[in-house]
């Protein structure tokens, strides 16, 4: 990285706690900031968290961060262990909003906000604004507001004005915006008396013309009723000399009273509006609070509250980039930070964010107060171009105190020869009015000329004041075969692909939405022909719904299946997933990609998916809400803009707004549509200044609005500010260029760039800028045929890639009881093992349990635990152990159950098996694990005995009541258990294992299997077969009414037919089915 220039060095080293740097275009202010920050951290011992760097947008913050990092990476000296300082995320580098967000997150109580607040994006904010406005309008019953709503052209202008006033006052720092309504007007009585007298004087005349009489009478009526006529009564002065003075006096008095009445009505309307605004502001605030959300402005307002309350921040350095775009609230926050040293960098001449309430005067004031340092060396534009721009822009910004000429410092760089002169103003002229399409052709030719002279496509930027009308330019460039890339365009909702996909979704929501139906049918989803569509209408009949008739037109019927399939996905796929499915439905995506600019079309669809995703992240998969929100966005003209295909190396001409290229540079700049004039602006029915002063253009049915005095003042101020800003936008646009500038326009509108630059050029005589006029060419007749989609190149069909399937049992841990559970009820296995649902409620089937009051499982557990504790060879435990163990386990007292448990244990210990066990080395409850085909089988063996002969005995106790059955009959699934245990033993190194499954009720009939090394393969096959049954079997429910094995099953809550069986409801469901909340 090159060392800072002398100018930059002076700014970095400037003394004082407050430094203002006026940095002209291309003067390397980022370089200066990066160097200053690096020096703070590296040389002056400033820690990252003591640094506060505010930028004007996220990209600028990112760029600055990247540059600072690169600066550190560049630095060969290394930073040792303190490399930690590299971590700028601990520092405060970001936009004002994000930095304020952090302050508020650290101090939510001082800020009075939700400690887990969320930040609303623009879309979510707009939705809440509209809700709050709806409510405020319905609730405000101030008579002035009611009158305003009647008199205005519908509610829209009132809504627009309320939104604008709210935004403006919040940007100025008002927490809950309120208007300052003007003081009450003076008493009207003297004016009435005066008018009466003067009208009478006119009417007294004996020879009076009819029109004069009527006007005088109208005057009297106005005086009597106080009702404002359509216009002030006024007698024509083309009358006799004698009458003239009287008429003049009458006219003056009538006008004065008229004004006074109008003023009163206007004031009433304004008061009503103020009332509405207050209701709206409060409702908006309440809504956000209810969800714990803050909008962008709230972050700043809340941060100010924290700082005003005296939060403990001790910033050593504060840097503000693009300070000219800071609004009053941000400025106050800067003051409140109270840093050791605050450096603001800006350029009054580049202040182009008036619509965000930035005021360039702020920068000038600061510069004046602290003695601004200036960066005037321009490293961007080649000297001949800079000379031309200096002169041209000096004329265009003659009255702008922030403008200063730049010094040419750009080193010569290789590139196309500089044109002579390197700047031009092109006017497209024609016989009649020149259309935008005609101008676009000229712009395309200018660009073609630049390309011919050696510029690469990517060297050329065509800039616009706004991109609302960019299509003709894009079309004209494409006609000449010039690739172009719209950096960020509007018209998102107008894109066919976006509209088509949304239409299909609208059908998913309700297929009776017929505009959506027709669109979907006509789109590449079906590409229905005109005749098929007419056929559909005929089949449906006049005014009858189209949807049911779809089946009657075979070519169109497929849509019904598509919609049904998408409806089936709603729960599973989520909102964005549904949209992705809609995009791929009927291979729509392929058709879109195969059109001209397919990638861009697809990117727009992807943007729609992202919108769905962020909507669903807040509101869940609410398709209906999503469609409604997009509809509202369309209505509010909140276009999210076309998707961007980011490719810095893309060799295409860039099309962008001037605002969009702030901070960037291009070898050649073409400012197109330069005669377009100021977009938007004007027309508000209420104007508000940052202090809350306001004026209204009084609304009257059937008449144009009457502006109040203050309105006129505020309007004039706003107009002047807009005009000055327009000049600065010209400055920003032209100073992006390194080698060449063309400005193209047609019949200039007042205040447009073309006119501003034309006037400036008129005063120049140095020939540094060329003025030329180009005749508009005749346009080809429009609309005769659409461009054909490209003809695709045929290839053979691709082979589908091999699927990446994994075995769902691989990597799982299964116990024998889980496998046994699968054999009992595959659905329960699915719920518990595959879906990992926790246990369901206990099922008390009522009546005496077959297995006694403790239940079979509890008795089994008691016996197993007791046998596990047994030292083999010792006598049986003293009677009463079972009752004690049952008590500890929380089982109800039962002599019968206890007796049985004790009897069974005693029998085991008296059995010959006990002696055999005692003769070996026995270990109870031995865990084991083995892998079969990637599935981990684990469990605990009841007893493993190393016998003196080297053999291994594995015993498993079975405590079932046999109820007359033979043990062999009950073995069923236990054979698999034996296979698993046997395999485990062999794999663990046993040469031979006897697997002895011992039914306590039939000690004399043990179920024995003996396995040896050679059996391992067969055992594995048995286990494999069991796993395959689990893997491949359908998850069927084993019952449709409650069964004992359903006890504790998650299926009892839902999922299983048993959950819907009336007997399930009748069986008392025990356990915390309602979480103990009921």
């Amino acid at each position, binding site marked *: 990285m090159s060392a800072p220039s002398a100018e930059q060095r002076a700014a970095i080293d400037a003394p004082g706690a407050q430094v203002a740097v006026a940095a002209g275009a291309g003067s390397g202010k980022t370089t200066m900031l990066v160097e200053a920050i690096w020096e703070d951290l590296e040389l002056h011992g400033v820690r990252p968290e003591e640094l506060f760097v505010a930028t004007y947008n996220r990209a600028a913050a990112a760029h600055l961060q990247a540059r600072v990092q690169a600066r550190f990476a560049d630095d060969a000296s290394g930073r040792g262990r303190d490399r930690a300082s590299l971590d700028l995320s601990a520092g405060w580098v970001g936009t004002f909003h994000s930095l304020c967000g952090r302050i508020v997150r650290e101090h939510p109580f001082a800020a009075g906000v939700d400690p887990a607040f969320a930040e609303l994006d623009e879309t979510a904010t707009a939705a809440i604004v509209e809700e709050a406005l709806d409510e405020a309008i319905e609730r405000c019953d101030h008579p002035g507001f009611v009158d305003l709503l009647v008199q205005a052209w519908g509610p829209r202008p009132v809504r627009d004005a309320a939104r604008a006033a709210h935004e403006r006052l919040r940007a100025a720092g008002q927490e809950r915006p309120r208007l300052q309504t003007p003081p009450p007007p003076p008493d009207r009585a003297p004016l009435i008396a005066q008018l009466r007298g003067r009208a009478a004087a006119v009417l007294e005349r004996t020879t009076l013309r009819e029109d004069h009489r009527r006007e005088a009478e109208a005057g009297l009526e106005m005086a009597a009723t106080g009702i404002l006529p359509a216009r002030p009564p006024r007698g024509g002065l083309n009358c006799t000399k004698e009458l003239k003075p009287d008429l003049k006096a009458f006219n003056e008095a009538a006008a004065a009273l008229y004004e006074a009445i109008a003023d009163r009505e206007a004031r009433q309307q304004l008061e009503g509006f103020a009332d509405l605004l207050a209701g709206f502001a409060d409702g908006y605030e309440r809504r956000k609070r209810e969800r714990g959300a803050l909008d962008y402005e709230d972050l700043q307002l809340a941060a100010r509250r924290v700082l005003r309350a005296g939060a403990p921040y001790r910033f050593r350095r504060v840097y503000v980039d693009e300070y000219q775009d800071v609004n009053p609230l941000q400025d106050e926050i800067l003051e409140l930070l109270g840093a050791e040293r605050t450096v603001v960098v800006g350029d009054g001449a580049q202040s182009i964010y008036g619509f965000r309430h930035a005021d360039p005067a702020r920068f000038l004031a600061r510069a004046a107060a602290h003695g601004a340092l200036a960066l005037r060396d321009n490293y961007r534009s080649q000297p001949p171009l800079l000379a031309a721009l200096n002169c041209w822009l000096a004329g265009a910004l003659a009255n702008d105190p922030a403008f200063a000429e730049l010094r040419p410092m750009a080193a010569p760089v290789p590139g196309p020869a500089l044109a002579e002169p390197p700047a031009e103003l092109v006017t497209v002229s024609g016989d009649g009015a020149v259309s935008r399409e005609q101008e676009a052709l000229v712009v395309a030719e200018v660009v073609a000329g630049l390309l011919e002279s050696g510029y690469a496509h990517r060297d050329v930027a065509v800039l616009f004041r706004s991109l609302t009308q960019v299509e003709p330019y894009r079309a004209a460039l494409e006609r000449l075969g010039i690739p172009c890339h719209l950096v960020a365009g509007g018209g998102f909702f107008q894109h066919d692909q976006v509209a088509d996909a949304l239409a299909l979704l609208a059908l998913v929501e309700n297929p009776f939405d017929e505009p959506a139906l027709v669109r979907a049918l006509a789109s590449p989803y079906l590409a229905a022909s005109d005749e098929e569509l007419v056929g559909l209408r005929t089949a449906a009949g006049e005014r009858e719904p189209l949807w049911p008739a779809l089946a009657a037109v075979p070519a169109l019927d497929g849509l019904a299946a598509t919609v049904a399939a998408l409806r089936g996905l709603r729960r599973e796929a989520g909102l964005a997933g549904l949209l992705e499915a809609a995009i791929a439905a009927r291979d729509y995506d392929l058709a879109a990609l195969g059109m001209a600019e*397919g990638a861009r079309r697809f990117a727009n669809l992807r943007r729609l998916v992202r919108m769905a995703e962020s909507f669903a992240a807040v509101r869940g998969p609410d398709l209906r809400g999503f469609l409604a929100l997009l509809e509202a966005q369309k209505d509010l003209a909140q276009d999210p803009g076309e998707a961007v295909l980011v490719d810095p190396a893309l060799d295409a001409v860039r099309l962008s707004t001037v605002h969009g290229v702030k901070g960037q540079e291009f070898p050649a700049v073409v400012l197109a549509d330069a005669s377009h004039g100021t977009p938007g602006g004007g027309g508000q029915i209420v104007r508000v200044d940052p202090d809350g002063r306001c004026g209204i253009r009084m609304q009257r049915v059937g008449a144009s609005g009457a502006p109040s005095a203050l309105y006129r003042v505020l309007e004039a101020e706003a107009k002047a500010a807009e005009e000055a800003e327009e000049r600065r936008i010209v400055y920003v646009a032209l100073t992006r260029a390194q080698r060449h500038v063309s400005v193209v326009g047609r019949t200039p509108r007042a205040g447009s760039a073309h006119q501003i630059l034309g006037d400036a050029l008129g005063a120049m005589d140095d020939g540094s800028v060329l003025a030329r006029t180009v005749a508009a060419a005749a346009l080809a007749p429009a609309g005769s045929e659409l461009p054909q989609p490209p003809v695709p190149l*045929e290839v053979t069909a691709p082979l589908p890639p091999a699927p990446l399937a994994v075995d769902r049992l691989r990597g799982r*841990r299964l116990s024998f009881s889980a496998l046994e559970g699968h054999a009992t009820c595959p659905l329960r296995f699915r719920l518990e093992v595959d879906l990992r649902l926790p246990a369901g409620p206990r099922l008390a089937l009522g009546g005496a349990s077959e297995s006694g009051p403790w239940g079979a499982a509890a008795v089994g557990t008691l016996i197993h635990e007791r046998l596990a504790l047994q030292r083999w060879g010792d006598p049986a435990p003293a009677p009463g152990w079972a009752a004690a163990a049952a008590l500890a386990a929380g089982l109800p007292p039962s002599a019968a159950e206890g007796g049985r448990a004790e009897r069974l244990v005693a029998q085991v210990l008296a059995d010959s098996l006990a002696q055999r066990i005692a003769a070996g080395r026995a270990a109870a409850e031995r865990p084991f694990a083995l892998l079969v085909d990637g599935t981990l089988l684990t469990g605990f063996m009841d007893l493993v005995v190393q016998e003196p002969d080297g053999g291994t005995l594995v015993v498993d106790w079975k405590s079932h009541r046999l109820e007359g059955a033979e043990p062999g009959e009950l073995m069923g699934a236990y054979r698999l258990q034996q296979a698993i245990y046997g395999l485990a033993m062999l794999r663990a190194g046993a040469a031979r294992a006897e697997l002895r499954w011992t039914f306590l009720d039939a000690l004399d009939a043990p179920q024995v299997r003996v396995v040896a090394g050679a059996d391992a393969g067969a055992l594995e096959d048995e286990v494999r077969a069991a796993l395959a049954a689990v893997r491949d079997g359908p998850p069927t429910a084993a019952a449709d009414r409650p069964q004992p094995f359903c006890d504790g099953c998650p299926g009892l809550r839902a999922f299983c037919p048993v959950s819907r069986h009336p007997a399930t409801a009748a069986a008392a469901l025990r356990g915390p089915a309602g979480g103990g909340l009921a």
Partner: protein
Amino acid sequence: MPLVLHRGAPFGPAEAAAREAWQRLGGLLVVRDADAATRALAEAAGTGAHLDREVVTLAGLRGRVRRDAGLGEAELPAPIATRLVLQEALAGRDWPGFGEAAQAPGFLAALERAINELRRARIRPAELAGEPMPPPQRDLAELYARVDGSLRLPTDVDWETADAAGGLPAFPPVALVGFDDLSPDAWALLRRLGDVAEVTLALVYEPGRAAYRARDERLAAWAAAADRLVDHRGAAEGRPEALSALAGFLLEDAHPGPLPNGAVRWVETAGSRGMHRAALEELLAAANHGTPLARCALVVPRLADARDDLDRLLADWGVPARRASRARFLETPLGLALTQLIRLGELEPEEPGALDPLLGWLRSPYAGAEQDEVDRFERDLRRGGGDQRSLLIGRWEGVAIRPAIELVAAARGGPRAQLAALLRAGWAGLANASGPDPGRADRRDAAALLALAGLASEVSEDAAEGEDQRPRGPLPRGALGRLLADLTFRDEEGPPEGLAVLDYAGLRGRRFGVVALCGLDAGGQPGRPAPDPFLGPLRARLAGRLPPRAAGTDEARLRFLQAAAAADERLVLVRRFVDDDGREVAPSPYWMETLRILGRPPGHADRRTGARGELVDDPDRAPSMREALRALAVAGRSAPGPLAAALGRRRRARGLPGRPFADREVFNVTYLEAYLRCPYGWLYDRVLQPQPLEQPFDARAEGSFGHRVLERLFTQMRDADVGACTYAALPRYLESLPDVIAEVDEALRPAAAGRVHAAFVARTERHVRDLLLAEAAAWPHLVPKLFERAIDDAALVPGARIRGTADRIDVSSEGDFALAIDYKRSGAEFPADDEHVAARLQLPLYAEAAAHSVGAASAGGLYVGITRRTVDGRFREDVPVADGLGKLAIPPERWRQLVDQAIAAASGAVDGIRAGELAGPSDLCGRWCEHGVLWR
């Protein structure tokens, strides 16, 4: 019995020592989670089997201790019950320190976390009391004291277990691996077990390394409390040089310089999807080269943000994956459906706005409603039904509405009753929605309900993790909303052998072959610092008793080190160089650090730009068939099958060669005008006539309101013989106007009419009033005679019947001339030149037809704008129509000519329609026309 603490690099000799102790001594190996336990057992089993080796999680270890100590199973209340306790305590008084924040929906969950953390560190209320503290912390201390006795938290149970461990007579040996940190109770448990059993701990920590700074204090304390401390040098073995270098030198001064191997890759992409795709492509490439999928991990900074996108991508590409993340109850489809029910219940019976929530519920699969019926129900209601709860519930019969009724009833019982009703509705809804083969969606819904019921309460070792800063949607009102606002549950997904999708915290202690680390950009990893407003100011005072908060810078650094150390074969670092909107994104400092360590220049990366973010560029390497076809399509290629068919649908067949209207006889005048103006507009608006679900009360509706008022008023005046609207008759007209307005309003008022509608009605009255005044001022001479007059004329155009409705026909006093008047909302121009015949069929044809029907001659026609009071049209100068409209008078022969031109044009249109002629849109049409949908 000693407690031995081994410290060292991740997966290095310290961990080997602990595993060796487990192998040697048997007993329990403690690992992070159940998956890790399965893996550890499987690894130990290998191709054989083992006995007497147990692997458990910390929860499993606690369970074992409880069992041995005879404590029984722990019973925990639902988290929501904890919130109820807190809410009730809060409601008791004012909390000036918390201020307004105490009413915020996120407050309860944050407070609960803070109290949990205090309890986990065993800090009692008394320890906070007494000292001067900032007001919020003073409130916290008081509140904590107030609820102390009535709360039983999961961490209390853990402490109970730790305490019991000290009293055990014996315990099997315990070894612990895979942790870099332990909660205070976990450390206490292990320390106490160390008094009765062999306890071997391996903690990831390398003394003196900058990357471990976050652990210096705690590890020093534990080292002091251990019976034996072993610090291991050296790292995991068998790794490629570059990976070893990264693990060994991250954040250190020294670095090994350029290392020539491909074990680390840097990939830069555009946007989040591009980032996920790039990472996944890299992992799939590894899988295709033989690394089992289960040995691949995709790591993102915040699962909550990336989850949905990744889930879809993985499903699209058919990649089995496993992941677990936290989701919000209210964000699930079931949560949303239940919210709709609550909203419906919250509305007053007569309050409008009930249709949306009702439909939201009925459309959900949980309601069990027939979707066809819902479609019709919605259509009927939106085309003119009311929108109040009482009315709607009355109209929609059946079980689907029952939960709503129950919820309305429960609302009177307070939040507990509401929650219980919600649970009942939820389980019933889930039963409606689930099919025979329950899957992922069922699991998620069940998990959400279990969380609501408190049945799935689980203890997170990372209590401070998981703050979700995404915006919330609309919440239920009042206390219920605050309880549900931040209710989250654990959402798990996928088979164990699938690709692992994790966040950086989840990667700790895990080891893979190939790891793709995403989000290495500013704000991604490391994330933004997460402040701790409740406990932050107390941390210094409580001197190290509270664990460090997760997202602090030091902590993030340690996470990154562990992430980089998790790969055995290959590490892929992925970052966005621009976000989804094309804005530049700075690289993470860690990204820069890895480049530095491995001696690569700052810009070194494989950068994916343009469409490569969203599409593959080589069809042969596409992960799915669809991706392959997409790649072909965007490259301008076609292949037989679906792609060729889709490309064939890029254009539709236009025109009506089959002449479907050849036999049509009746033609409306406006129909013909529409055809002449633009045949496609005609096809769309007049033939297809697609009806929207709801006709907004917009300009068109306003126009018909005005029409209706004028028709009624003039009819009344005619019937009362009042005559033309002259100055003399004006008072009669004006006098009747309010009643007529009221009558029309009654008939046309939309269901949800409010203040805006009332203003519209008042405004219309003024417009009509002004219109009447203007009419009087024009001194009319003809008498308004017929209104809304149906025209049906077979004589005008041979072979066709021309129909229409004339708003008003005025006739001369002798009845020999008729004038047609057509009201337009704001006005219309009558272009009288010869070029625009097609745009002015209406007035001449209506005038002519009306004149035929009343046996008079046509005198002319006028468009009258209701709101702007404009008048345009033409009439014969020999008929005294109105004094004030002289400029519209033309010679009778010119009027005749206009009529003839109109007839000829109408006749041409009739022929064109019958012949099926459908020319493309005219220059006047833009793509913004509704019928633009047909023009492609």
